[in-house]
């Protein structure tokens, strides 16, 4: 399974936790943007750690959101 993160620009507060956990996947300036891919584990960890819960994770194969 390949998991892709999506940042909700309205909810992101730019805390930076995602980029600290997955620096190859996220970059945070004002808000977070997805800059690359990471392992499923690291993507899930980053999404679960988001204090604003602004990261959704989607299964690339089905397009369905994954339960965090």
């Amino acid at each position, binding site marked *: 399974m390949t998991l892709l993160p999506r940042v909700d620009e*309205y909810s992101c507060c730019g*805390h*930076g936790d995602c980029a600290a956990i997955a620096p190859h996947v996220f970059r945070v300036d004002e808000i977070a943007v997805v800059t690359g891919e990471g392992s499923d584990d690291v993507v899930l960890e980053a999404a679960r*750690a988001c204090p*604003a*819960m602004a990261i*959704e994770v989607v299964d690339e194969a089905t397009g369905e959101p994954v339960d*965090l």
Partner: protein
Amino acid sequence: MPSRILIAGGGLAAQRAAETLRARGHDGAIQVICAEPVAPYDRPPLSKELVGTPFRPAEWYADNDVELLLGRRACALDVGARQVALDDGAVGYDALVIATGSRPRRLPALVGRPNVLELRTVADAERLRSALTPGARLAIVGGGFVGLEVAATARRLGADVTVIEAASAPLARVLGPSLGGWFAALHRAEGVRVEVGSGLEAALPAVAGAPVSALVLADGREIEADVVLSAVGVAPETRWLAGSPLAGDRVAVDPCGRTVVPGVWAAGDVVGGDHWEPAARLGAAVARSILGLDVGAAPPASFWSDQYGIRIQLVGSAGADVVEIDGSDRSFTAVLRRHGAVCGALLVGRPRELPTWRRRLADAATERKAA
């Protein structure tokens, strides 16, 4: 699964509950009772920029079939009939989310004065903004985060600002005297008068309903003002629950936001917190709980404030007995310890340290549980 979900309150927790319900597949009705005449908006910018930022574009609500009952107020809860009485009519529910937030505390000396403002709504922010003409003398009663943020904003707009704090320093009750002293020094360096150590005694003239011309402190100090901001904290908005099983000074909930009443959840300030992250998280958790989904554990919460372009962040819990400061005047980390253990950190001008600290505190909590 409940088909009609009613959310009483239109703030952050309400918004996150509605969004999560739709994102997780709820296809029944969602109604949101918004006391204000505008769609839900984010409140932190109220004190930072004197505006409220809408959470979503206006069409989001129609696109997601979320019905906003704007300008309506929840007045009473009938748990037997599963009904919320509004100021005009009533709405039934299968599941109810109580998210009525909080209301500003008021000082008797300032009630009923036309130039005494408070800051809780976007309408309040507009009133304050129009009062802050360059040179206007603003007296802020209360040196908490809201009072200090408004002080910084008002200085930027050219107002003459005084902050009045009854404790020995701003935020001293939350962060202790040494960090409180840093906040006092910061604001003084930016041209704010910071009057500490004495509470508000009276407003002059001593004529009910007259505009305030000066504030008198308990020790006799007098502060002249054209406009006064009362910023002495908030209390959960639970008055409408009087007569219901949930009456009280806050609504008690479990980690999923469930109350003791079947079919009723609560989230946001009404459960007794007053910070952004816990409100967002519990709003989403409530939605998941209503839908029968698992609710994950929350990471250590953080809180942020912006003053004079400096990002200030508190992570973990305050109430430290020892504070260790590392850094320089406008860029430092204050490690907060209680009974020898690290309980939190205040980051000043160091936003990139936040994730590290959140992790460190989460690991410490896990270790404590394991021990």
